[in-house]
Structure formats: C-alpha cells, structure tokens
C-alpha cells in the first residue's frame, strides 16, 4: 500500500522532471547553434532567479540582490499558480481553457477600477471587494465560454481564444489616450489611475518599494489547497471528474453536463481573476494598455497546468519553475555579458513550448528510460476484438488526463 503510493508519487514527479530537463537541453542546443554559450547563459538566468540566495556557499553574488530576485520569482509564481489551477480545473472536466489570459485581463480591469474609486471605503473591505469583484467578473467571462459550449456546442478552444482577444482589445481601448478609464494623471499615457498606498497588499519579505513579496502568495497557496479539496473531497469535484472522464455515463447518473461545463469554467475564471487581483494590489497598482497586451500570465498557465499534471502540488511546483524562468530571463535581472537580455525572454517561450510539447506525450520520457515495462504499462489490456483495442483508455499516459480528443476543432 505504502510503497505503491510512493511509486505513484515518484512516477508523477519523475516524468515532469525529465520533461523539463529535456526542454532545457534542447533549448541549450538552440543557444549553442546560434553561437551562445548555454552553460554561462543558464548560469546567468539562474542567478537572475534569485534561487542562488538559497545556496549562499555556491554563488558569490550580493545577498541583498539575490533576495530581491527571489522575492520577484515568488511574486511572479503566485499568479502562475492561480492561472495554472485555472487551466488545470478545466482539464479535469475535459475542457481546454486557453482563456485564462482573457479572464485575467477583465479581472484586472475591474480590480483596478474598483480599487481606484470608492476612496472613502475601509481599506481592508475595499481590497477584498475589488479582488472579489475582479474574480467574479473573471468567472463570468469564463462561464460565457462554458455556456457557449453547453448551449451551442461552440468549441471552448476557439471561444476562449476569441474572448482573450476581445478582452485585450476592449481593455486597451478603456485605458488608452481618450479612453473612458484612462487615469486623470496619465497625461497621454495609456494607463489607469493608480491605487492608493493604503490599499497595497502588505509585504511580508523585502522592501515594499522594490516589489517585495506580498501576501498574495498565501492566497495562491490557499486556492491550491481549495482546488485539491474541491477535486478530491467535494461532490462538485466528483461530478467534474465524472463528466471529464465520461459525459455519457455522467448524464446517465443524473449529472447535468451543461451545468458542469458552466460551473467549472466559472471556477476557472475566478482562479484567473484572483491572479489579476493579487497582481494589481500586490505590485502593479495600475494597469496599462501595454501590460495588457504583453502579459503572458494566462498563457503560461497552460504550460504550468500541463507540467503540473493538473494536480495542486504539481501546479505549485511548475508555477515556481516558470516564475523563476520569467524572473531569471527578465532583462533587468540579467548579466548582459553572459546573454543578450533581449534574447532571454524568447528562450523562456522556447522552453515553454518544448515543455508543453513534451508533456503532450509522456512517451518520449518513457522510452528514454525503458520505463513502460517496469511500471507495467505494456500493451494496455487484453484485446480480444478490434473494437476493444481502440476502446482502451489509459489515463496514466495522457497528461491532460481528462482531455478527450473531440471531433470538430
């Protein structure tokens, strides 16, 4: 019993690790081919993440700067946990939520707007209200895709992507020069009003002036626990998983598949909306058309969820990795003598693409290790008739466990 649980845990950690390593090696090859030194580049990126703070005996870097970098890594990881959970939750019901970016965007618009009006409100209530309303609108934005799927059969991949672009353009419109929500002090810049200092989330580590670590990270962890509880311990999660695995059987058991799609998407949207809330009140304090069109938090959530295999703990770990990558490759944290700071963020995209590509099939990792036989994953099941051979569904192999191929995209 114990050992099989250990084996399971081991199995689910080993494959993502191999995946990440392979992605780094392949990206390193790209650097090598284009005349960059992968080792010193990765070294510079590692120093940029602040993770060297944990290993003071290895790196001779300035402890203060390392600490600041690490704070930034954690600040970047917190919203990724939430957008990752947003994508992961949808996977559980068999939907592909590519719309976390749009849900994040609408929520940040609402959060910053609420945060900059009602100035006489009690600060705590004000923050909670703004973040809550942001999450609510994010939920509604996502539920729209769920409803389109449930009512019209519109594929959520298309509709969430369209909702992303709609959100991005509408938000850009709102904050741009002459736009209705442009800040009164913005003076030609496409920026919202700024949230007052007493409404900032408290910083628990580091200097508030230098984007120290705020309490948003706790919110992310709480939501991760909540995610686990919903999936594993609630009737809602049970229904979501049943619908994800087999909507026909779920219907026959009295579950309402359409409702599941809408409710699930709403929860996804709320998660992504919370990510926007902690970003806006944690360190951004204002929203601009530029940040809206360049933000990648929602898209990165896809890679986070896939790498984290849709589990709460995996998602947190994957978010840390991608948060570190984001921070490490940010131009400002890099030593330009090792790698061109313009180049590094592109490297993140390549690594992200490779990770998603590799987790889309675990076969590579498995073949490399010859694992299938050891773990008893040989030919799945006995097949006595041709039909049976096709019907076999081995969830262990599919990273998006419940994501069924569905005709029509």
């Amino acid at each position, binding site marked *: 019993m114990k050992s099989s649980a250990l084996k399971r845990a081991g199995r689910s950690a080993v494959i993502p690790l191999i995946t990440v390593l392979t992605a780094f090696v392949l990206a390193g090859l790209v650097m090598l081919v284009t005349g960059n030194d992968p080792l010193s580049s990765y070294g510079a990126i590692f120093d940029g993440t602040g993770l060297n703070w944990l290993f003071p005996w290895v790196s001779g870097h300035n402890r203060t700067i390392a600490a600041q970098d690490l704070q930034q890594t954690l600040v970047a990881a917190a919203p990724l946990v939430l957008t990752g959970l947003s994508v992961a939750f949808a996977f559980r019901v068999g939907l592909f939520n590519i719309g976390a970016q749009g849900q994040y965007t609408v929520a940040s618009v609402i959060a910053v707007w609420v945060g900059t009006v009602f100035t006489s409100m009690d600060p705590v209530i004000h923050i909670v209200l703004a973040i809550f309303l942001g999450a609510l609108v994010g939920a509604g934005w996502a539920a729209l895709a769920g409803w389109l799927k449930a009512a019209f059969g519109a594929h959520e991949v298309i509709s969430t992507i369209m909702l992303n672009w709609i959100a991005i353009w509408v938000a850009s419109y709102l904050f741009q020069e002459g736009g209705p929500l442009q800040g009164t002090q913005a003076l030609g810049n496409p920026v919202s009003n700024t949230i007052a200092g007493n409404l900032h989330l408290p910083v628990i580590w580091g200097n508030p002036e230098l984007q120290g670590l705020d309490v948003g990270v706790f919110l992310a962890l709480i939501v991760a626990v909540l995610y686990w509880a919903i999936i594993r*311990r*609630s*009737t*809602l999660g*049970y229904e979501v*998983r*049943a619908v994800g*695995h*087999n909507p*026909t*059987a*779920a*219907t*026959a*058991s*009295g579950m309402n598949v359409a409702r599941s799609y809408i409710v699930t998407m709403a929860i996804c949207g709320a998660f992504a909306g919370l990510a926007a809330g902690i970003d806006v009140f944690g360190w951004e304090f204002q929203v601009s058309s530029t940040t809206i069109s360049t933000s990648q938090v929602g898209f990165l959530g896809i890679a986070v969820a896939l790498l984290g295999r849709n589990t709460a703990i995996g998602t947190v770990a994957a978010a840390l990795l991608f948060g570190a990558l984001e921070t490490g490759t940010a131009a400002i944290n890099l030593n330009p003598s090792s790698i061109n700071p313009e180049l590094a963020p592109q490297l993140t995209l390549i690594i992200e693409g490779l990770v998603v590509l590799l987790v889309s099939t675990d076969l590579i990792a498995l073949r490399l290790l010859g694992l299938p036989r050891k773990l008893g994953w*040989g*030919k799945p*099941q*006995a*097949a*006595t*008739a*041709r*039909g049976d*051979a096709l*019907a*076999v*569904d081995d*969830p262990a192999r599919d990273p998006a*466990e419940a994501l069924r191929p569905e005709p029509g995209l």
Partner: protein
Amino acid sequence: MTDQTPVLELRAITKRFGPVVANDRVDFDLQAGEVHALLGENGAGKSTLMSVLYGLYSPTSGEILVDGEPVRIGSPGDAIAHGIGMVHQHFMFIPVMTVTENIVLGSEPVKRGSGAALGVLDRRASRRRVQELSDRYGLAVDPDARIEDVSVGMQQRVEILRALYRNARILVLDEPTAVLTAQEITELMAVLERLKADGTAIVFISHKLGEVLEIADRITVLRRGRSMGTVPRAGATEQSLARMVVGRDVIFRVHKDAAQPGRTILSVEDLHVRDDRDLEAVRGASLTVRAGEIVALAGVDGNGQSELVQAITGIREPTAGRIAVDGTEIAGRGVRAATAAGIAHIAEDRHRVGLVLPFTLAENLALRRYRQPPLSRHGWLNLKAIRELAVRLVEAFDVRGGGPDSPASALSGGNQQKLCVAREIDSDPKLLVAHQPTRGLDVGAIEFVHSSLIEQRDAGKAVLLVSLESEEVSALADRVLVIYGGRIVAEFPPDVSDEELGIAMTGGAAAAA
C-alpha cells in the same frame, strides 16, 4: 476434398496481447467452394483470428498459406492482394460517403489521359462497375445513396460487393447475421449459396448454432483461443456443438418459479420520443410493468428500444406522453427524478453509459447515491462511507479482479457488469430496467445476471428487460412485448414460439393488426 490444395490454410496461429493469449496454436483450412464456419462464444478468439488473417493484427507466431504458398500478410492491403475479402461485424464504412465511393475506395477507377497522372476520379466508371457487380450477384444496392442513409441489410450487401469488387476468392463474414432481420438472413443465405457455387471460399463466423448448422459445410469450434476441432456438418447437432463451445452441457435456462405479479409499478402511456437525428423513434408506445414480474421487450435493434429506455430512465426528454412509477409522474423530469421515483438502470453499454472506466470501483459504485448521506453531506464527500459501501458490494456481488481502489477499467467485462448490477440493485429500486444486460458476457456471467434479475423479481420488484436475444427473452420473461417501429405491436406469453415472435419483430403483426 482433402486431397485438394486448400485455398487458405492457417497453421498454428498464436496471438498474444501482453499476458493474454487470444489465439493459441489455431489451425484452420478452407477449400474453394465451401462454407467453413468458425463457431465460438464471445471472446473465444474468432475475430482475433480473422484480424490476423486480414492483416489487422500480426500473429505472435504461426503461418498463413494461400494456395499452398506461405504468405506474409502485414496489412489489409496485403490481404486484398491475396484475394481475401472481409465483411466486418461492425461495418467498416465512411458513413458520409456514397455506396459507390465506399466500394471503390482504395482502388478507384481514374480518368484516362491527363487525368490519370493527377488521379482524377472517374465517377461514371465507378458507378457502372458497382451496378454490374450488383446485378451479377443479385445484391441490390443504391449506388448513389449515402451509407448512413441505407438500411443495415444493404450495408452488408455493400460490404460483400466491396470484397467482390476486389476479386476476393476468400470471403470472411464476421457475425453477419447479428444485425439482420429474419427476411434479410434468408436473403443472405441465398447470396452465400450463389457465391459458393461460383467457387468462392467462405469463412462464416458465428456464435449461433442454428444458422451454422444451416449454412456450413464444415465447422471449427474455438474455445478460449484454442481450436476444439473441426467437424463436418453431417452428424453435428446443436447439443454436440454446444458441448464443444462451452466445454460442458449448457444450462440454457435458469430455474424460475411462476411469477406473482402485484400492483402496477411502471405505466407508460402514448409515449413519443425523438432520437439524436430529431426523428421520431418512439411513436406512441404504451406499456405497464407490475411488481414481481419480468416484462421482456423484444425487438430488432433500432426500433426505438434505446430511446424508450432513455425516456423511462430520464436521460432523454419525451416529446409527448406519460411515464409514471408507482403513481409518480416522471416524464421529462430528468434522471434524478426517475431515480428518486425508484428506477434503477442497467445500461446497454457499460463502457459508455454504465461506468466511468478511469474511476475506482468505489467511485463507480457511488454514482447513484453520491449526493445523499452518508456518502456526502453539504456537498462534501465522505470517503470512508464510500469505501465501506464498495467493500460491502464487492463482497456481496463477488466482483473479482480488483479492490475498491482499483480502476474499473482493470476489470474483465463480466466483473464490470457485476459492478453495474450491484450498484443498481443496491439502490433498492421499485423498477429495474435492464437493457441488454448480458451483451458480450460469457456463459458464467450471463447466468449471474439472469439469476440476479429473477431474484429481484421474486423480491417483488418490477423488471423491464430489453433484449435482442430471443433465447434470453424466453428464458426470463413472464410477459413478452414486441416493439416495432417505435410502437408496442404485440404481447405474448413466455412460451411463444420463435416463429411467432420473429414475425412480430419484423413487422408481421403490425401488418396483420
């Protein structure tokens, strides 16, 4: 006959899937102009053997000889090249394409001249050749109809034509009668006689003793992947074949006492239901089932059974009519209302409808009642209670192959069905709807399901059995209703003859009425 070189010979074919041996050193040979039947239960390895022959599976070991020469058949293309044609049990068609397109697909006539290089289809030539073949063998088809719009019988004729179009000398028919009406079966037998006379060698796969004795020249029996020997038709009887098939004398009937029907539990009145294609599948069906009786609904597949069951169990909303369970009206109120009113449902397709395969046994067993205490309270699951339920049911219903925490996909078909039966019976229903509850099961599992249904009846439950197997109907029913064209067209006592039942199932009674 034996001194001729067989057109086809399989020598010691073995096919393994992981640890499971689907075929174990099977020998089989076929002469020109004979029908050689391959007989065996579901899962005996008949289809696997033929898939090996047709290049869909590669054998683990063994040898295939065509006209005495060893050949390698690595793909269906190779099989076709050696003159082997296959009529699949589940027809292999592109539903949205026409009859002609399906027949010529893979060796399409192309236009001559510049068209040949580009591979431009010669649609007129295709159509002409299909028509010629159709006329020659008396296999009537509509060359321009889409496959999805033609009857199952015509689809089968198209499959045969497709093999003939490719000049097949060896024709394999995999359970060809399973989907046909009595009339269509007669026609098929005539076509096979004609082909035989023409020198075509035919492999006839079946698990029905009667029709094998009718058409076959020789009979080979498979049991659990092994050949039990080949016998000529002369001298073979149903009893002797049955012994070879199951390895013991078959208990064809489960013991049951006379029914003692009580009050009416299910009453369906003038029910109308539309199917997925928005066509009216159930057209004014009325029926009642009383406590303590098994009512069998017999009929050829596709006459509205599925839609009727879905309406009764709340999965599908009827367009008109009434459904009442013990006085509670449930039509169109959904699955939960039906369950609350006391309906349990052993689904037709356990993989698709009955179970969530990746779920554990415990999770599957909770599917009916996860919303009620003690399994959950205020939206939170009680994992301990769910596990206890599973432990109890796995024990009580002797589900083997896994514990409460193993996924349902790990179980064999029979044990999966036990799981479904356990869950439904344990919900203590007033009405148990069993839709083809023994499909694809072996004899032992069939006995279990049958005796479970009778136990439920004797415990005073109403049982509605929907079955396509007339044997099952006559073994279990206290009353037999016949559904045809979405209506209940006849009612018989359980001892109705197969002829009478067959006539009613194919619309004879409706015409008479």
